């Protein structure tokens, strides 16, 4: 069997691992910007699909299917993001006789339409009242019925785009058009719906595996630590659930996916507040945060995805799922740690914490790697697991402060601050955690920073940024097209302000 991985970065390296285990030959693709990326080296064969922007490369169905046919692949794994939840892509694969590693087009059509998914699920689980609206007048009327505050969402949406919160009539008139526009730009659909807005909820999801007949759950993940509706830290088990509540939420998720006759790996997402949970959406793909579930259950989720897609079916039963210990994932992004503005550029040194058996790092970077400005800013996932939650937090703190990434700013300082926050330590946090976070630092670090700022090395450091150093020439040789200027300016913006 040969498999095409229609994605880039760390998830490619991750899928390759499971392929090797199952004797599947892993093939892949890369854009012009990823030509020298490390993940390409892990692939048996890889095709250059050109392009820099995702819309010219990883979002192009024709290029992906073309590469799969040319390389003689039997299957396509879409990873996460890009084409992962696109029903059309799954259908195109089917037409061309390629197995799509993900749910069937019928399932994707329901899960990809948030409103329709809610309708299907409302028979099984509590959902927050929601209604589709097409005009501002209608929006005002529906909001009044439901009661403020409300949230406007794109029916086809995801990743927090198109979301607007309104707590009054004036807010609706302010945000309606912009939400619609953003939905149109991001998802090519201006269908919106209005939903009751739950203030300060927790965000808890349940991992599901299914092959159409057997549907099982692998426990929950707590994902409340987010900025702008994008997750930053996840942990399992959730510190918010009693065993009884855990049973209820995981059973409900399993029932929902049974109703859908779900056939692959997927996640049911809930909002949780005051001992009550509400269905939010189904994510029909492998998720960024899947490793924490793998660490506590010992089950290889990608292996199961491949088993399900290739017709072998699920090789585990619900009784085989016995989670133990505690796992936390920190998503390390190439971003300013305080403003979260993304930052592409060249990584000078990349030295992960190697020290213990309880630390897992999913990444596709090393010293000298470039973080292209064209895709998302995730550069590494740091996953720690120990018997107890407190032990996991300690291991994570240690690992974060030992993780050396230099040359570009990363969100490591954010993670250290979050893990030192009493709300996190006590497990008492919700989706507003990040907004109320105080940066954590040390007194002796202040002295060190003050001195480091005045050493002659700083001058050397600055010279590099001026544009004539080896590093810039090195980058230039890789981006000799018209996007080069944009590339460099992207990686340098912080130095101009």
């Amino acid at each position, binding site marked *: 069997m040969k498999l095409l991985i229609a994605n880039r970065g760390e998830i490619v390296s991750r899928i390759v691992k499971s392929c090797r285990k199952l004797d599947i030959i892993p093939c892949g693709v890369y854009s012009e910007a990823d030509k020298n990326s490390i993940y390409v080296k892990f692939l048996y064969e890889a095709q250059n699909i050109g392009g820099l922007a*995702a819309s010219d490369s990883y979002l192009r169905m024709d290029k992906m299917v073309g590469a799969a046919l040319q390389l003689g692949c039997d299957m396509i794994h879409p990873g996460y993001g890009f084409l992962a939840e696109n029903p059309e892509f799954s259908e195109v694969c089917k037409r061309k006789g390629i197995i799509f590693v993900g749910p069937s087009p019928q399932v994707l059509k329901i899960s990809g339409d948030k409103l329709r998914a809610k309708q299907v699920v409302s028979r099984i689980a509590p959902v927050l009242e929601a209604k589709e609206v097409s005009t501002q007048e209608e929006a005002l009327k529906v909001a009044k019925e439901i009661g403020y505050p409300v949230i406007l969402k794109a029916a086809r949406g995801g*990743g927090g*785009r198109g979301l607007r919160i309104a707590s009054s009539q004036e807010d609706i008139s302010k945000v309606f058009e*912009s939400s619609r*526009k*953003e939905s149109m*730009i991001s998802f090519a659909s201006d269908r919106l719906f209005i939903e009751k807005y739950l203030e300060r909820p927790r965000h808890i999801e349940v991992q599901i595996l299914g092959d159409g007949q057997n549907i099982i759950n692998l426990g929950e993940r707590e994902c409340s630590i987010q900025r*702008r509706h*994008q997750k930053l830290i996840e942990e399992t088990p959730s510190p918010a659930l009693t065993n009884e509540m855990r049973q209820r939420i995981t059973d409900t998720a399993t029932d929902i996916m049974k109703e859908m006759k779900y056939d692959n790996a997927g996640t049911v997402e809930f909002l949780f507040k005051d001992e009550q949970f509400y269905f939010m959406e189904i994510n029909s793909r492998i998720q960024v945060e899947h490793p924490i579930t793998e660490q506590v259950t010992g089950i290889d989720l990608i292996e199961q995805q491949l088993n399900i897609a290739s017709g072998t079916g699920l090789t585990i039963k619900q009784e085989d799922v016995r989670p133990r210990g505690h796992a936390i994932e920190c998503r390390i992004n190439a971003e300013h*740690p*305080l403003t*979260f*503005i*993304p930052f*592409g550029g060249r990584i000078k040194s990349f030295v992960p914490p190697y020290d213990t058996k309880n630390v897992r790092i999913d990444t596709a970077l090393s010293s000298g790697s470039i973080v292209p*400005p*064209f*895709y*998302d*800013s995730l550069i590494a996932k740091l996953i720690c697991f120990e018997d107890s939650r407190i032990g996991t937090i300690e291991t994570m703190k240690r690992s*974060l*402060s030992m993780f*050396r990434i*230099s040359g*570009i*700013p*990363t969100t*490591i*300082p*954010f993670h*250290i*601050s979050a893990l030192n926050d009493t709300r996190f330590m006590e497990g008492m946090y919700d989706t507003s955690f990040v907004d109320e976070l105080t*940066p954590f*630092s*040390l007194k*002796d*670090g*202040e*002295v*060190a*920073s*003050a*001195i*480091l*700022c*005045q*050493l002659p*090395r*700083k001058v050397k*450091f600055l010279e590099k*940024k001026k544009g004539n150093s080896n590093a810039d020439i090195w980058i230039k040789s890789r981006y000799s097209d018209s996007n080069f200027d*944009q590339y460099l*300016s*992207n990686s*340098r*913006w*912080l*130095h*101009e*302000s």
Partner: protein
Amino acid sequence: MRVKVNGNDYDIKIIGQNVIVNGKQITAKFDEDQITIEGKKFYLDYIEDSDPSLVIVNGMAYIVSKNSDLTISMKELRAPISGRIIEVMVKAGDDIMKGQQIVVLEAMKMQNHIYSPTTAKISELRVKEGQTVKTGEILATFQ
């Protein structure tokens, strides 16, 4: 030299290998991108070329400002990163507060909320929704 780090004042004198912090001499050893103070190692992960400047040491963020009393009068707001303007929250002639949201700029799959660096009146707004901007491009000018 006097600097402010995370809001605290430090007086630093470096004479060869001797470092005097707030009048007290300490033992420090310098190396490429790292410094050892009283036996503890500090790695410099990142340093921003500006004032105030973001410095990342041992994975923690420090804001170092050399001229703590300096108040910069801001005349314009520039795009911090190339991308597309998704939303414009203000118009020319508006009185805005420091920290008020001006535009939403989408770049690297992220919606970046760009805030006003100053309290002022907007004299000119140079971008509209849907437009793409380059790093450093002026988004708005202030009176």
